[in-house]
C-alpha cells in the first residue's frame, strides 16, 4: 500500500529486512552436506556471505535454506569436499 509523503519517515527505515526476506527462493542449486564426512571445521560457516550456515547443538553444520542463495562458496572452500551443489527440483 503506497503511503503519502506526510506519512513516510524522513529516510527509508527497515526494522526487519534480511530476516523476513526469504532470499532462498532465488536459489537454482542447493548445497547438500555429507554429515558423515564433515569434520566440523566450520570453514564454510565462516565463508558463507549470507550467514545462511548455522551450527546446531551437536556441532553439526545446518544450512538455512530460507536464506541460502546457492552461491556455492561453501562447496568451493570445503577441504573435505563433503558439500555438493545439486540442482533444485
Amino acid at each position, binding site marked *: 500500500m*503506497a*503511503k*503519502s*509523503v506526510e506519512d*513516510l*519517515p*524522513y*529516510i*527509508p*527505515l*527497515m*526494522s526487519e*529486512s534480511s530476516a523476513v526476506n526469504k532470499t532462498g527462493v532465488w536459489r537454482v542449486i542447493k548445497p547438500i552436506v555429507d554429515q558423515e564426512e564433515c569434520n566440523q571445521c566450520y570453514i564454510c560457516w565462516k565463508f558463507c556471505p549470507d550467514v545462511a550456515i548455522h551450527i546446531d547443538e551437536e556441532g553439526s553444520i545446518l544450512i538455512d535454506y530460507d536464506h541460502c542463495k546457492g552461491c556455492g562458496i561453501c562447496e568451493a572452500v570445503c577441504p573435505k569436499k563433503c558439500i555438493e551443489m545439486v540442482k533444485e527440483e
Partner: protein
Amino acid sequence: MPMDVMTGNSAQAYGAKLARAEVVAAYPITPQTTVVEKLADLVASGEMKAQFIKVESEHSAMAACIAASATGARAYTATAAHGLALMHEMLIWAAGSRLPIVMGNINRAMAPPWSVWADYQDSIAERDTGWMQFYCQSSQEVLDTVIQAYKVAENHDVLIPAMVMEDAFYLSHTFEPVDVPPQKDVDDFLPPYDPPVKLDVDNPVGLCALVPPDHYMEFRFKIAKAMEDSRKVIQEVDEEWEKKFGRSHGGLVERYRMEDADAAIIAAGTMSSTARVAIDNMRDKGKKVGLARLRVFRPFPYEEIRQIAKEVDSIGVLDRSYTFGHGGAFYTETAGALYQAPERPHVKNYVIGIGGRDIPPKDIEGILEKVLTKEDGGEVEWFGLRTSGSREVN
C-alpha cells in the same frame, strides 16, 4: 576573547575542534593538507577528543564520515578539487541518508591542465548532490561557518550535510587575525547532535535500503523540502551567532554599499573583499555601485537576488568557474531566478579568475564600469582572457 593569527585551513581545523567533531576521516590533497595536519596534531596531543581515521582515498573518507554520522557522531572531513570529485558518489549517499556531516572544501581548479590554484569548478560540479554550500571570504568566516554549518545541518527540519568553501591559497595559506571564541560559548551555541534515528546495536534498524517507484519520489521531495527549509535556519543561525559573538556573515547574501546603487555585482569568496575596495574607489568618484556576496549557493538565495533586481538597473555576475555549454553557474542561476521576478534588470556574466588568475581591484572596477553602462557585447565575457590583441601578450 583570544585573538589568534591563522590561515583559512587552521580556521577550518579549529572550527571542527570547537564544534567538538567526534570523528575526522580525511585524505590529504593540496591545498587542503594543512587542515588534516592540524587536526591530526590536535587529536594526537589530546587537545581534541576525536577519532582520527586515516583512509586510503576521499571516497573512503566520506564513507567513514557517513558511517560515523549514522551512529549519531558528529563527523568532519575536508578535501579539494579531485578529492571532492572522487567523493562524488558518497556525497550523494550522505545527503540522501540525511546525515549532517560538515566538510571543508578548499576550492581548487580541476585538471587538466593540472592546477592547484583557486577556482570553483570543483564544488560547482557537486551542486546537485544535495549538500548545502557556503562560500567564505575570510579565515574568521571559515571558523564561524564550520560551527554554524553544524547547527544548521543538525536542525531536524534540515538534516542535510554542508560544505564550507574557502579559496585555495588566497585563504587556505594566508594568515589573518581570527577571534577564537571560548569553548564554553560554542558549547552553549551548539549542543550535542541529537539524531532522530541512529545505528544502535540495541535497536537494530536498516537505513536507506531499496525503495520502489511507489516511494522514491516522496523521499527525494523530502530532501528538496529540507533544502528549502534550510534558508530560514541559515538566516536564524547567523543572527543567533551575531547576538552571541558580535559578528554576522550576512546569512545567505551579504550586501555591501547597496543603498541607492544603480548597478551591482554578484560575487563569492575572496574576490568579494577585492570588490569592496573597487566599490569604495568607484563610490569616491560618485558612481553608485554595490556588491551582493553569495555566501550560500545551495540553497540558491533566489528571494534575495530578486530583491536586488528590484533595486538596481544592471547586474554583473562574476563566476570563478564555467559550465561548459552555457555560462558560469552563479550567472545561469541568477538569470533563472530573475525570469520569475517582476523586475528584470540587465544581467551579464563575467568569467574571471579561472585557475587562480589574480583579480586586482582595477579589473573589478573595469567590470563595474561595463555594468553601469549596460555594455552589451554578448551574454558571457571571459574577462581578462589573453588574446593576440591584448597588451600583456604583445
